[in-house]
């Protein structure tokens, strides 16, 4: 039994240390020190453990120091997609980023994700993001009546779109994409991932409608293969690969 090496001791007296969080803040109603809508940095010092995640650190700030700090979160283990933010200039989920992996000697920079309007502190308006997703008709489209039993699909056929089914719509990819920053018209990588999941599903018959949408000006050709999306994706989805497969399908007319 080797799992009990000290580093992995989950409970007990893990030594604690001090970390500084520098949080990019914005209060739409203003505070005593800051005008409404003004963006500013604020520093908080907290005691943390090596096993703590950035989300735990944010909770410490919110619960013990400043209850007005606003951020979204729910599941706390990387499956709901609520808490994508820029941590040390990289898009990540706060609940999946361990403090010990961040060099706690330096202040940890926390900002809202880019490219979407900031509403308050780390909360951004997600509506444009979800609107792009709805745009690509993200649902199975089939002709004819529903079958008696399941539609058959071999494990190999399923494997083709397995990767893109993992998406939790956290927007880490889209808000990391430089094209999205400069051109809000771009569907963004997430919508392409969402479309890919159906285009390559052998049961789906709406592929060409979706491909048509992605062939549009704001579509897949806008992607400059910057790879920021793939690097940001907390689910390890090969986003750029999915995009490239969509391009290939458009170029060859084959799926």
């Amino acid at each position, binding site marked *: 039994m080797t799992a009990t090496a000290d580093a992995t001791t989950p409970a007990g007296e893990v030594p604690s240390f001090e970390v500084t969080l520098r949080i990019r803040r914005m209060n739409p109603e203003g505070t005593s020190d800051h005008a409404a809508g003004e963006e500013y940095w604020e520093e908080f010092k907290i005691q943390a453990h090596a096993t703590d995640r950035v989300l735990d650190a944010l909770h410490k700030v919110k619960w013990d120091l400043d209850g007005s700090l606003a951020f979204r979160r729910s599941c706390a283990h990387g499956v709901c997609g609520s808490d994508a933010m820029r941590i040390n200039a990289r898009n990540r989920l706060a609940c999946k980023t361990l403090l010990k992996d961040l060099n706690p000697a330096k202040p940890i920079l926390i900002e809202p994700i880019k490219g979407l309007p900031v509403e308050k502190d780390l909360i951004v308006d997600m509506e444009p993001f979800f609107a792009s997703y709805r745009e690509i008709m993200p649902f199975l489209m089939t002709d004819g009546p529903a079958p008696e039993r399941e539609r058959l699909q071999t494990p190999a056929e399923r494997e083709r779109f397995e990767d893109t089914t993992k998406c939790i719509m956290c927007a880490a990819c889209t808000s990391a994409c*430089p094209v999205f920053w400069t051109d809000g018209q771009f569907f963004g990588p997430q919508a392409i991932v969402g479309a890919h999941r159906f285009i390559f599903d052998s049961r789906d018959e709406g592929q060409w409608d979706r491909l048509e949408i992605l062939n549009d000006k704001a579509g897949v050709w806008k992607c*400059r*293969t*910057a*790879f*920021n999306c793939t690097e940001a994706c907390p689910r390890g989805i*090969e986003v*750029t*690969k999915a995009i*490239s497969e969509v*391009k290939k399908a458009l170029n060859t007319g084959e799926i």
Partner: protein
Amino acid sequence: MWLVHRSTGVAIFFFLLIHVLDTALVRVSPEAYNEVIGAYKTPVYGLVEAGLVAAIILHAFNGLRIIAVDNSTWALRHQKKLAWGVWIVFAVLMLGFLPRHLMHVFGGA
């Protein structure tokens, strides 16, 4: 990398505009052309030209990397290594080109 590609592309584009215009002087008269091209041979332009070559090399090889990434899953998965490769090729070519070029520029002018 994406920024590098973009900025080098733009730089080359503007250079090309000028370059074609000055080459057009060939049509006007040999004197005019030689006068302008003479400017290229001064150290300042020599350096600009070196920068241009650098930009072209980066843009070209990164362009090749992009094309590879678009067409092969292997390249896609190893794009980071390929990006390093672009910088290495860039370094090697520039090391080969710069001494020669600067020699011509400073030595010959």
